C-alpha cells in the first residue's frame, strides 16, 4: 500500500491529527495576535463600571464540566471585575448540579474571601433545583424559597440578605450557561420586574441571545472564549482566554482550508462521491 493510498483511506485520522497539532502549537508558542473588542462585551463592561455602591448583582451559574472551557474564564473575569467595584453586593446562584463546584473555584481563584467579607459583600446560595420554577421562586421571594445558604448559614443572619427580597431588588442578573435557564431569567426577572440581564454564553447559544440583544431585552452578551478574552483585555488581566484566541485563529484557518480543499478535490476530481 503506497503512502497516498494510506492517506486517502484514512483521511479522517489525518484531519484529526492535524487539528490536534494546529490547536496545540499556539498554546505552547503564543503568537500574540491582537484581540478586537465586540460591542456586546463592552456593553457588559460599561454597565458593571457604572454600578453604584449598594447595587445587587446576581450571578447565575450553570457551568458544568462540558462548558467549563468556554464559560469559566468569563465567569472568573466578571467576578474579578465585580470585586473591584466598591460596595457592590454579589449574590451567587447555581442552576446546575455542578454549578457550586465552579462558583467556589472562582471565589477561590479571585481570593474573594480575602478581599471582601462573606455575608456582607457576597453570598453563595448554592444549587437550587427545579429549573424555571426555582428561578421564578428566587424572583418572587428568596426567603420563602430558601432558608439557608450554600454552607448552611441561615439567610436572615447574613446582613446582605436582609434587604434583598425579590427580583425588584436586583440591579443586574448575569447568567452563565449553555442551556435554557438564561431564558428563564428573561421570562421571570426581565418580563415581570424589568431587571437588567446579560448573559455569558457558549458560542452555540449566542445566536438566540443575539436576537434578544437586538430587541433590547438583554444589555450585553459575553460570547464564548472570544468574549472572555476580550473581557480579560478590558479589565487588564490577560489569562487563559487570551492565549486560547491564537489557537482559535489557527483552527479557524484550518477549517477554511479544509472546506477549500474539499471543493478543489470536488471540482477537479470528476465530482465523484
Amino acid at each position, binding site marked *: 500500500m503506497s503512502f497516498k493510498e494510506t492517506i486517502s483511506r484514512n483521511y*479522517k485520522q489525518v484531519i484529526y491529527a492535524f487539528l490536534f497539532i494546529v490547536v496545540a502549537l499556539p498554546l505552547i508558542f503564543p503568537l500574540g495576535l491582537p484581540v478586537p473588542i465586540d460591542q456586546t462585551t463592552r456593553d457588559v463592561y460599561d454597565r458593571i463600571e457604572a454600578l453604584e455602591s449598594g447595587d445587587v448583582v446576581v450571578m447565575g451559574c450553570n457551568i458544568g464540566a*462540558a462548558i467549563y472551557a468556554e464559560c469559566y474564564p468569563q465567569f472568573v473575569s466578571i467576578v474579578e471585575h465585580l470585586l473591584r467595584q466598591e460596595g457592590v453586593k454579589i449574590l451567587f446562584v447555581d442552576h446546575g448540579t455542578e454549578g457550586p463546584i465552579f462558583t467556589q473555584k472562582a471565589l477561590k481563584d479571585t481570593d474573594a474571601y480575602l478581599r471582601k467579607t462573606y455575608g456582607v459583600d457576597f453570598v453563595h446560595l448554592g444549587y437550587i433545583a427545579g*429549573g424555571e420554577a426555582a428561578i421564578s421562586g428566587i424572583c418572587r421571594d428568596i426567603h420563602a424559597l430558601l432558608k439557608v445558604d450554600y454552607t448552611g448559614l441561615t439567610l436572615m443572619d447574613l446582613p446582605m440578605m436582609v434587604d434583598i427580597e425579590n427580583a425588584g431588588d436586583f440591579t443586574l442578573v448575569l447568567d452563565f450557561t449553555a442551556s*435554557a435557564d438564561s431564558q*428563564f431569567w428573561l421570562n421571570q426577572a426581565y418580563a415581570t420586574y424589568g431587571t437588567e440581564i446579560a448573559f455569558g454564553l457558549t458560542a*452555540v447559544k449566542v*445566536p*438566540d441571545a443575539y436576537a434578544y440583544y437586538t430587541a433590547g431585552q438583554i444589555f450585553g452578551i459575553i460570547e464564548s472564549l472570544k468574549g472572555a478574552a476580550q473581557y480579560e483585555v478590558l479589565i487588564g488581566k490577560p489569562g487563559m482566554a487570551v492565549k486560547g484566541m491564537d489557537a482559535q485563529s489557527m483552527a479557524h484557518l484550518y477549517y477554511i482550508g479544509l472546506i477549500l480543499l474539499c471543493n478543489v478535490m470536488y471540482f477537479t476530481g470528476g465530482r465523484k462521491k
Partner: protein
Amino acid sequence: MTFIFSALMLAMLYLSSKKTYIPQIREHPGVLAIQEAIRRAVEMGRPICFSPGTSSLYSTKYAGDTAAALTILGYVALEAARTGAKLIVGIAPPTVLPVAEDIVRSAYLVAGKPEEYIEEDTVRFFSPNQWGFATSYVGMMHREKVAANFLFGGHAAEAMVIAESGATVGAMQVTGSTNVYQLPFFLVSCDYTLIGEDEFAAAAYLSPDPVQKGVIFGQDLAKIFCVLILILGSILRTLGIDTISRFLSM
C-alpha cells in the same frame, strides 16, 4: 395574540373535522425521505434506529419537540413493523421510556407481529446524560451496522457526534429538531433535515388521524397573520405610529 393564534388553530381543526374545508397540503419532502430510508434499510437487510431526543417530557423548551418526535416514532414503528425492518429505539430521558415502549409495542401489535417486539431490546434505555447517551448510541450504530438513522426531538450538543458517526457507518440519516443550535450540524452532515416547524408539520402529516392535516393549514394561517402584522407594523412605524408594537406588548 395567544388567543388569536389558538382560535385560528382550533377553528381549522374543527372545520376539517366537519369536512367543510379540506386544505391541500403539499407533499412533505421529509416524509418521503423517511419512507425512502426505511425502504432502503429493508432492501439492505440492516436495522434502522430512532432517537426521540434527549429532552424530557416536561422540558420547558423542547416538550413540544419531544411530542412531535414521539408522533413521528409512531409512524416509523408502524412502517418498520409492516415492512419487517428491524427497529432499535434509543432513549435518553427516562420519562420518555414508558411512552416510547408503549408506542412501539402497540405499533407491532397493530401490524400483527407482536412477537417481533422484544422487551428491553427494541426500545433501549441508554442514559439520561447526553454524553452517556451519545456514546451508547454511537456504539450501537457501529455494532448493529444500521442502514437508517432517524434523529428527532430536542437534541443538544451530542447531535454532531451522533450524526457524523452515522455518516461514517453509512446510514441514511433523516433528522429534525427545533433546537436551532443543532440544526446546522444536522443540515450539514445528514441526508435530509426538517428545519424547525417542518418537524411539527411532519408530525401532523404522519398522524394516523387524517383530520390532523387541517391543523397544518391553521399553522399556515398563523404565519400569514404574522407576515401581515410585520408588513403593516413596519409601515405604521415608518409613519411614526406604534399601535401594533403596543398591541403586541399587551
